[in-house]
């Protein structure tokens, strides 16, 4: 991968048209589930410290694309990925990339809150523990506290860290999962419809959180809720039937879409 040089560049990453460093890049990404093609060549640039929203009707391949970014698709039988996907210019599907390392750098939050059936503390500390990020109990305590604070959950759970994470409410569980993802200090966080199982208040919490997290992390979020995409993201990509129809600034997509399919979707004509 060639590194473009730019006189204003602070990071060694290549820049996009607006001067944002490109954290992850997809070029001609195709995904097959057995004989069925789910993605038909996706080209996307994911800017550093930006929120990219993936929208589109069900079955259009947004989640599939998201799961390519940290190779969670590897666990699906007969799933094949073609094309080029890079993280910091490194081929994600290359031979010298280790999936464990990749998933530590590209964390993920799932559609349904899925805390481990363990204590809140153990939920957060599990990742740092297996990566050997803390040599002391004090350090681990600090990581747990910081992660929970970042996820806006610390005040609610600080007195019951030893209680099971599954005993929290749905919204709290999802924030716990976000805290768990943050705890291993990833660079990119992938969120697969993180609010679809939550009520509006919990959703508002998470959206606020996403906006704050943007300062330190690059975020890719899949959502069915177009208002949510409009609220939290800087860039939006519209997927339709395995193709990426359009990817632009969020404002541009929602006010002035170029493709009529995008227009149809955001105005609620289908999907």
């Amino acid at each position: 991968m060639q590194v473009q040089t730019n006189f204003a560049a602070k990071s060694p990453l290549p820049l996009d048209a607006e001067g944002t460093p490109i954290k992850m890049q997809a070029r001609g990404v195709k995904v097959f589930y057995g004989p069925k093609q789910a993605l038909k060549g996706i080209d996307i640039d994911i800017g550093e410290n930006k929120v990219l929203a993936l929208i589109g009707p069900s079955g259009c391949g947004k989640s599939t694309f998201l799961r390519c970014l940290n190779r969670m698709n590897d666990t699906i039988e007969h799933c094949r990925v073609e094309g080029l996907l890079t993280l910091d210019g490194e081929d994600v599907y290359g031979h010298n990339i280790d999936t464990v390392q990749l998933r530590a750098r590209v964390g993920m939050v799932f559609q349904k809150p899925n805390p481990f059936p363990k204590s809140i503390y153990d939920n957060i500390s599990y990742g740092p523990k297996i990566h050997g990020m803390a040599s002391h109990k004090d350090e681990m305590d600090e990581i747990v506290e910081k992660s929970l604070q970042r996820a806006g959950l610390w005040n609610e759970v600080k007195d019951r860290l030893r209680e099971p994470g599954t005993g929290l409410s749905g919204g709290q569980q999802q924030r716990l999962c976000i805290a768990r993802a943050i705890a291993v200090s990833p660079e990119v966080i992938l969120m697969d419809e993180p609010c679809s199982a939550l009520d509006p208040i919990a959703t508002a919490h998470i959206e606020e959180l996403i906006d704050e997290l943007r300062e330190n992390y690059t975020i890719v979020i899949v959502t069915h809720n177009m208002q949510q995409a409009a609220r939290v993201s800087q860039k939006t990509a519209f997927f339709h039937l395995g193709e990426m129809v359009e990817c632009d600034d969020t404002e541009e997509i929602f006010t002035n879409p170029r493709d009529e399919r995008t227009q149809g979707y955001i105005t609620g004509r289908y999907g």
Partner: protein
Amino acid sequence: MTDLVETGTRSVGSSASKSYYQGDAFAARLRQRYAAERNFKIAGYASIGIAAVMLVVLLSTIIGQGYTAFWQTRIQIEATIDPAEVAPVGTTDRTKISQGNFNKLLRDALAAQFPDITDRSDRRKMYDVLSSGAAYELADAVMENPALIGQKVKLWVTASDDVDQLMKGYIERDAREENRKVNDIQLRVVDKLTADKNIALQFNDTLFTRGDSREPEMAGLWGSIKGSFLTLLVTMFLAVPIGVSAAIYLEEFAPKNKLTDFIEVNINNLAAVPSIVYGLLGLAVFLNFFGMPRSAPLVGGVVLALMTLPIIIIASRAALKAVPPSIRDAALGVGASPLQAVLHHRLPLAMPGILTGTILGMAHALGETAPLLMIGMVAFIVDIPGGFTDSATLLPVQIYMWADSPERAFTERTSAAILVLLGFLVMMNGLAVFLRKKFERRW
């Protein structure tokens, strides 16, 4: 209900025709549905009832036949430990004492109680009220306490099985002598002993402390209990790690292709293979090819492990499959390796199911006789096994062999042995329930 009626009236009022759901045809249909449900319930109650009755019949028969085996008739003897017959006063050497003629001491003691029985053949009949093992019991008592030599000892010794059956009421006193297992002389002796309170039914500790014997009153289950324990220990240490590891590999790591499909089909088939086939395999491979010892718990354990493996693999795979995939996603999502995702998250959650399957498999192995037939474990073995390569037999085998014995006293002992085996099975199943409750977690 009132709502429905109201709506109904209204609709009748507003339009002439009733809706379909208020018509007679629908009402008849509804009645039919409820009737079907009722009939199904009745059938269910009936099946449960039949099963319960059968269980009660089975248990009551076994208990009814077997409970007397937990008691054994013993006779109190007042014997003089004559140094001339045993060893000089002051001897403490156990082997020297054990060589003494304790039989003669017992006979003399009996003869002293019945001086009127003088005929040789009558005397022999009289001696037969005592078990042939009674002399060993006297010898044991003297070996325990050598100071008894030269003293008078009062000791309870085991009566013969026929006297025991008589005391338990299984032998009719009124039958003619030649049709009776206990002859007239012995009846006289027993009656005198009863009158003197020198004969009594006592707890049968022999049943739990001794190995097998040709004499029912001397036969015990301890040898087979220990044999079963040693064998199951081998089975467990082989089948559980191998079975669970195989299940983890097949469920989590194996590529889904023709070969793994083939393996899966074969594992399922192996679970249904008649158990005697495993015995033949054990004979051919372990005894003939590897030259392992016959009748040994080691070989029995290996054979039973082979038989239990498919059960454990199938149960463990089902338990692993039942853990929601979201847990694995969560673990992989924070960068756990596939093995860590399994060992740290999926395996603990699958533990209750795995344990249940494992213990049920082990209980199955505990009750198995057929595979042991071929490797020499269905045999009359008196000694109590001390290790994995000693000759041993197992509880179900012991039951089979006692059931095959002609003596009346073995009938009740067979039932008693079945009760002991059932007791162990209930304990194992109880353990399975306990462990499942203990490891069960919500997610």
